[in-house]
């Protein structure tokens, strides 16, 4: 919905400080939220500590961002937060950002979504 760069580099895109994605699920039981991303050194130097993950406005957890590198973060989503056939938003909010030229950057997002 917002906060994700339109340009695709190989298989990732730059994420903004607040990235929002919208999903519709057929199955809501035993589902996990997964985000695969890379935290660049610049974000760490900018003072980042975490990326907050909210599902439907509720805090699911925090992805550690205090160290540069690849992250595959996965967390079970309580069944009652989701409703089959209804839209749900996932919101990823970083606690810092950095400037590349004039562009505001945070981390490189490979994928985010609901999985088993």
């Amino acid at each position, binding site marked *: 919905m917002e906060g994700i760069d339109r340009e695709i580099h190989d298989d990732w895109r730059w994420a903004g400080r607040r990235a929002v994605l919208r999903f519709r*699920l057929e*199955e809501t*039981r*035993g589902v996990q939220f997964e985000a695969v991303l890379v935290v660049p050194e610049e974000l760490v130097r900018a003072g980042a500590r975490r990326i907050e993950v909210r599902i439907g406005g509720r805090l699911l957890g925090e992805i550690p961002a205090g160290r540069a590198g690849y992250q595959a973060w996965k967390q079970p989503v309580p069944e009652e937060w989701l409703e089959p056939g209804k839209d749900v938003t996932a919101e990823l909010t970083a606690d810092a950002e950095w400037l590349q030229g004039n562009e505001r950057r945070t981390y490189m997002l490979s994928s985010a*979504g609901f*999985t*088993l």
Partner: protein
Amino acid sequence: MPKALSVLFGAGFTVLCAWALGRMALKRARLELAREEAHLLAFVCGAPLLSLLVTAMCAARAVYDAALLAAGAAILAAAWKDGAFRRQALAPLPPLPPLWRWLFGAVFAAYSAMAVMAAMAPEMSPDGSSYHLGIVARYYREHGFVRIDTNLYAALSQGLEMLFLWAFAFGRHSAAALVHCAFYLTLPLLMLRFGQRMGAPQAGAAAGLFFLCSPLALVDGTSAYTDAAVACVAFAVVYLTERDAPAWLTGIVGGFAYALKYTAGFVVLYPLLRLAWRKQWRGCAVMLAAAMLTAAPWPLRNWLYYGNPAAPLLNRVWPNDFVHVSFEQDYVEFMRRYPGIESYAQLPLELTVRGRLLGGFWGPLFLLAPVGLIALRRELGRKMWLAGAILAAPYAANIGARFLMPAAPFVSFAMALGLPAPALPWLAAAHAIGGIPDLPGKYLGDAGWRRLEIPWRAALRLEDETQWLARQSAGYQAARLVEALTPPDALVLALNGIPESYTSREIAVGFQSGRNERLLDCLQVALFDGMRPKVEAVFRIPKQELEGVRVVQTNSPKPGDAREKDLWSIVELRVYAEGVELPRESGWRVWANPNPWGAPLAFDGSPVTRWRSWERIRAGMFLQAEFGRAEAVDEVRLLMSDDQFGVQMQLQGKAPGGGWRLLGGDPPRRRAAVPLTLRRMAAGQLRRGGVTHLLLHEGDYAWDDLSRHARAWGIREIGSVDAYHLFQLE
């Protein structure tokens, strides 16, 4: 009839019919036998004939109580008419020295009483209560052979199970165990008589006690296993050979050894070598033909039912979908080196005094086995070592302690011949006392599989059978739970075995056949991240007309390579032109090598089914689709799991009117979205595969996910006992 009596009748009737057939056979063999050996050999020589009769009845689906009773009565009547019950004026064998007469008699009597009580107790041995008698019970319910595709053990030779079936009809589980016990008790007597016959009575008596009193022989020989019977029959083959029995008789008994256990078939080498040494070629031919008579039903049945006469082995030679090659590869490796065995130097102590890693132990006396080499100085000693070596030859393929049982009587004999004669009574007595249940636990600590007690109250059914079994075995309760809560046509998928002979429902244990493995694979695809369809390998090629596409695996990992055990799998193979998928049509011909049976699973549109090689990767494996006409193609996508890092692939195409040619290799891989309904899809696939229920134990790897997300799977718990839970697929 009180249960204890029906047990005794079932076993006694079986042994009596075998003995009667043997008496008639021995009469026709015109073999000069002493009274002491005639009855023993009659039982062992009659057993193959009775087994053959039951095999024929199973093939004719004629196994009914009345038919068995009638057949038994006919055998006994024929034997009566033939004079089998008449006392014969036979010359006795040379007498035993008094010391040995008393020692052997006392120990044999004591161990016989213990063995009969142990065998009469409700059967709870791991293999006996699960597959040996589970399959016998199935044959009994079905009145004969049926193709069982959920249990690879059903494809083993079942010569002894045929005798179990006869006994089971009248006395159920314990009667079958008692039939095995009859062989266990016959063997030491045969060894004794063989010693007397060969001029070594003390060695024969001592060797018989060495075998009889071994903790492993006692527990195995009193369970519904086959090992003691194999040992007894193998010894009888050598006995008959040394007595110059007719080749047809030795052949029938030798072939029966194969019918008891594949590897025991080696015993026919003994008479064969002897006949060949004497250049008795006609005798060789007769013996082999007779051996074929008792051995052949089993490869024939396997060929008809499973397409593999050697099932469940040699599946690369006779490819089939009943047992996967990958299972055989893993199983063979496992059996060659049990968990915990790092070096073969561990074997002597494990086999004799520890027994925890190899499933039982022979007793400390057998640490003296190397002394038996001294017996090589004597002709009899050399013969014993030759027979022992022949029967121990397959041991390297399965190093479990009981797989030495066929060779054990010969090693015992060699030991008795090699040890100083004055020491033999002391050693035999010490071994006999040391083997009484559960004295080994006192001086060896927590040693391996053995009889811990002689449950005489349970044996005589003075204690309730079901309560005793429930106390002894948690799995028994699970079997009763399945019986109580499922319909008669239920198919229950379980991850581990239970004593399935105590339920009439079909239990499909995950690893026990190709069908079960394929069902379990659906479950695991939904369960394990690495097995989910989350990778897409994409071959992009210049647009061209093709009549078919073929994906070839090109990597053959070297032995020891980390990827050596990888299996290749493809969830879906899709063909595209300009981004539009070619619809799969009925004219498509799909094929794979290996596992051509599974090829359609890569074209069924289901993310939980996949074609798998079911064999460790090697160059040349392929999966292909032929379209039946030329189609424009510029892309082939393979939906795959992430558990096959050793796989390297090439794409080949079939040009119109031409052959297969290389189009490209090493496809880039990208992530694919995993459907969130994968669990429910997997359960649906299990249902389509015939599964109605799942039986899980809280220790099973699938327990956590299935119990927590039962609704996502579409399963409902309908009962539990101890740590077992039974789920119904909705």
